[in-house]
């Protein structure tokens, strides 16, 4: 018996699977997460993987959370330790009173265990080897066998798992029945040889509702399909490659002409990020909706073209799935570290529109909207995801679309418009004060509306000019256009504390679920915070007023240099002292515990009784 009472919890615990990369564990682990969802209990899974194809350690963490906390929690209640390489570290990471599940085929010295945890051995290799002879089958079914054992230990309904396997192998009866068989092998062994269930249990609930379970990259790619993107050019880079891959598979299903079978899209894998963004710029210049997906190093490479998009006013969309930088950084770890790099990308005076979705549902919406914004504003739009949203399945509200919605192609002058009497076409002429000029697509009119696009300075009629006044006039108009953008981009969302408070918190993107949970933890500690989730740059005027309304505001972000805070200070002329940075940047997703501790400690310091008061 452990010297710590076993953790006992229903529908609220963390299971971590420690596997070897390339061992086929991913699909079994995902099956585990989905099975719990089918119990009506929300889960939040996360891949923790190396930059490697085969052999290095990989983890899959499932947070089972009836309360619906979808951020990472921190800590492990049950470790499924399938990787000898990481055994010691894995065992050490279990919470006192937690559970260690392992393959007990080979005896392990007692020094390899801990006295304060519950050890559950299942002879997985022995069971597998006595049932299967083919090495590949042994490998794959071993994963399903441990899933079966977990099913018994956590008191899960095996029917729900079987149902999922049935959906997965629909039409492949042989695979279906052998997987179900393996599931029961594990489950039966556990029921016969172990005390089932353990303290961690899954009980049926109704907290999932109609929510869907999708990766952010796939949702963003679907947003591009719905938003009318026809050209995608990309270069493989973790963690963004699955955006282009998902776009390809969505298009194969949704974008072929029913009569001819021909493609209503073009996808090109470029030779590098320079070519990818060049193709996007060329396609957008010519009137198609185009995008690329990349990550930090790709952004660095694309910056010259980003400046061209800004200055020559060519619409474009970049989906930046952020990973830990700088340089190659930690390619498979998450961060929000390209805020400044994207906001001011390229040489000279530039500013770009950034969108910060919080989850896959918003990634879908913002991805579709980014094409309207790019066309309307005739500039580069960055959709800022990160690895945590992009490469993990996240429970989110169903994707929504309005069939009446039309694409906003922005100010495009047609041949008919060019022929209207008195019509004056100047490519860089601001006719109505919003800073946005009209453009024409190439090939529109035999004699009117053509212009020469260039990255050099030009006048309102697109004629080359190095006159200072002409240059400044154009640069001022671009500022005006950026001001126009402020009211077009998604507005910040504000939620006030239960009781009036002098303190606020600003956060964005993948921090949202951890922040929402942290609010509850902070309330329990007696701290009230109004919160604002920023969803885009340029910042809406409500950001400055939110800051003005509070004594000070915490800015929670996942990078070292407080990049969003810098941007707020810089763009809104805020006294930096009023914005307290809360920074998490070790490459793991930010947790509610981290935020609550950091803000809670800061708040506790504020509550030190003043000396004078203590004396009197």
């Amino acid at each position, binding site marked *: 018996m452990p010297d710590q009472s076993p953790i006992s919890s229903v529908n609220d615990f963390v299971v971590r699977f420690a596997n070897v990369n390339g061992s086929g564990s991913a699909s079994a682990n995902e099956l585990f997460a989905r099975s719990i969802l089918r119990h009506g209990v929300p889960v939040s899974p996360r891949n923790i993987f190396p930059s490697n194809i085969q052999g290095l350690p990989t983890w899959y963490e499932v947070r089972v959370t009836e309360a619906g906390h979808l951020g990472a929690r921190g800590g492990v209640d049950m470790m499924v330790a399938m990787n000898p390489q990481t055994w010691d570290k894995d065992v050490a990471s279990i919470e006192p009173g937690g559970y260690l599940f392992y393959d007990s085929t080979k005896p392990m010295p007692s020094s390899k265990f801990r006295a304060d945890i519950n050890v559950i051995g299942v002879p997985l290799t022995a069971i597998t080897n006595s049932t299967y002879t083919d090495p590949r089958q042994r490998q794959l079914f071993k994963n399903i066998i441990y899933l079966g054992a977990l099913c018994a230990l956590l008191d899960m309904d095996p029917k729900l798992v079987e149902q999922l396997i049935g959906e997965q192998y629909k039409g492949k009866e042989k695979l279906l029945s052998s997987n179900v068989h393996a599931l029961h092998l594990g489950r039966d062994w556990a029921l016969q040889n172990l005390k089932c269930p353990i303290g961690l249990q899954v009980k049926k609930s109704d907290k999932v509702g*109609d929510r869907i379970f999708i990766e952010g990259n796939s949702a963003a790619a679907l947003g591009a399909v719905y938003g009318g993107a026809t050209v995608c050019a990309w270069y493989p880079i973790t963690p963004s490659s699955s955006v282009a891959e998902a776009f390809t598979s969505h298009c194969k299903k949704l974008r072929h002409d029913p009569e001819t079978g021909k493609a209503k899209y073009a996808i090109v894998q470029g030779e590098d990020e320079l070519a990818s963004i060049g193709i996007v710029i060329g396609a957008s210049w010519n009137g198609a909706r185009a995008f690329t997906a990349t990550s930090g190093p790709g952004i660095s490479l694309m910056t010259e073209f980003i400046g061209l998009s800004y200055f020559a006013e060519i619409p474009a969309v970049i989906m930046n799935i952020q990973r830990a930088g700088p340089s190659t950084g930690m390619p498979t770890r998450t961060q929000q570290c390209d805020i400044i790099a994207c906001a001011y990308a390229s040489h000279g005076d530039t500013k770009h529109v950034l969108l910060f979705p919080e989850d896959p549902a918003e990634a879908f919406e913002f991805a579709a909207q980014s094409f309207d914004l790019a066309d309307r504003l005739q500039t580069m739009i960055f959709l800022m995801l990160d690895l945590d949203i992009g490469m993990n399945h996240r429970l989110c509200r169903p*994707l929504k679309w309005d069939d009446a919605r039309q694409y906003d192609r922005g100010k495009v002058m047609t041949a008919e418009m060019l022929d209207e009497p008195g019509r004056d076409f100047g490519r860089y002429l601001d006719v109505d004060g919003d800073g946005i000029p009209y453009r024409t697509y190439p090939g529109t009119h035999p004699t009117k509306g053509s212009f020469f*696009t260039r990255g050099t300075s030009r006048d309102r009629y697109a004629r080359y000019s190095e006159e200072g006044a002409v240059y400044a006039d154009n640069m001022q108009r671009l500022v005006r256009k950026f001001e126009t953008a402020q009211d077009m981009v998604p507005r910040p969302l504000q939620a006030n504390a239960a009781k009036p408070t002098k303190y606020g918190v600003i956060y964005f993107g993948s921090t949202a679920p951890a922040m929402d949970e942290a609010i509850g933890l902070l309330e329990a500690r007696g701290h009230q915070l109004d919160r604002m989730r920023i969803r885009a740059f340029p910042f809406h005027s409500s950001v400055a007023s939110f800051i003005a309304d509070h004594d000070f505001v915490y800015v929670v972000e996942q990078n070292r240099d407080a990049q969003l805070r810098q941007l707020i200070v810089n763009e809104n002329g805020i006294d930096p002292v009023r914005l307290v940075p809360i920074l998490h940047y070790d490459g793991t997703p930010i947790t509610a515990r981290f935020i609550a501790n950091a803000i809670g400690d800061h708040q506790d310091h504020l509550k030190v009784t003043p000396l004078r008061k203590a004396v009197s």
Partner: protein
Amino acid sequence: MTYIAKPKFHHPGLPKNELGYTHRDYEGKISTLCAGCGHDSITASIIEACFELSIEPHRVAKISGIGCSSKTPDYFLGNSHGFNSVHGRMPSVLTGANLANRDLIYLGVSGDGDSASIGFGQFAHSIRRGVNMTYIVENNGVYGLTKGQFSATADRGSKSKKGVMNTDNAIDLVAIALQLGASFVARSFSGDKTQLVPLIAAAIRHKGASFIDVISPCIAFNNHAGSTKSFDYVREHNDAVNRLDVLTGRDPITVEYAPGTVQVVEQHDGTRLALRKIDADYDASDRLAAMTFLQKHAAKGQVVTGLLYVDPDAEDLHTHLDTVETPLNRLEAEDLCPGTTALEKINASLR
């Protein structure tokens, strides 16, 4: 360059082409390049070729990178959209533009610095992909705008204006284009318009990646003794393998050719290319032989010109991607958006 503005006056007797356009309709702004620049002759040849083909001027998209050559799209086809993009990146911008609208004619204009140095990769990959375009390199072996540095096409052993010897090996873009699968490859000389004009016309009518390397002497920095890209050197070493007549109509070939002296190639759109052989053994339909021929003659210091290779049955990128006939930029929400019914199905599959 000249400071005299171009008069708008049109001579009433100017000849018109099939569409009723005159030469002037294919011209652009007045050139700002040096007087006597080879590039201006190429500009004139492009104008001539487009006039002769009776192309609607606004249905051409002219795309370039950065450099003297890349400025020239402003000097022809003034009613076309032009895009003077980023140094070395014309090929990617052109590829994207082509994907967006397959119905326009794409003219990519680049230089030797733009295509053989900073843009060598993009040059290679656009050719590899078979983008339907006419890719013209105005090749003078030197960086003009930055005042006379060698480019990567400068021959080893050639001398700069300041007398410095180039010790690096030269990149022969024609040889590379052949190796990468370009389906139309030619080399010409800016000083030989009679050779160049039909080559440009044939390239425009070719479906697939057409590449033309035009040796175009830099009057300011690379036209001296010791240069292998000077007017004198190229004239002396020009080894033309054929002369080209482009026949666009359906009419039978009326010109009399002596038997065995002409090779006729019919392209996708019906244009026939009559190649009058100068070198009797040269076969423009044999890629391997072309590569060998080039290498052998280059070793002798000769500049091989003419239509070096053509594959009239080439496919382009759109064929490979199997895209719809309607240009992608004309598809509307009803063509592109799968709608709520499809989305509800997707939602259901994600539970």
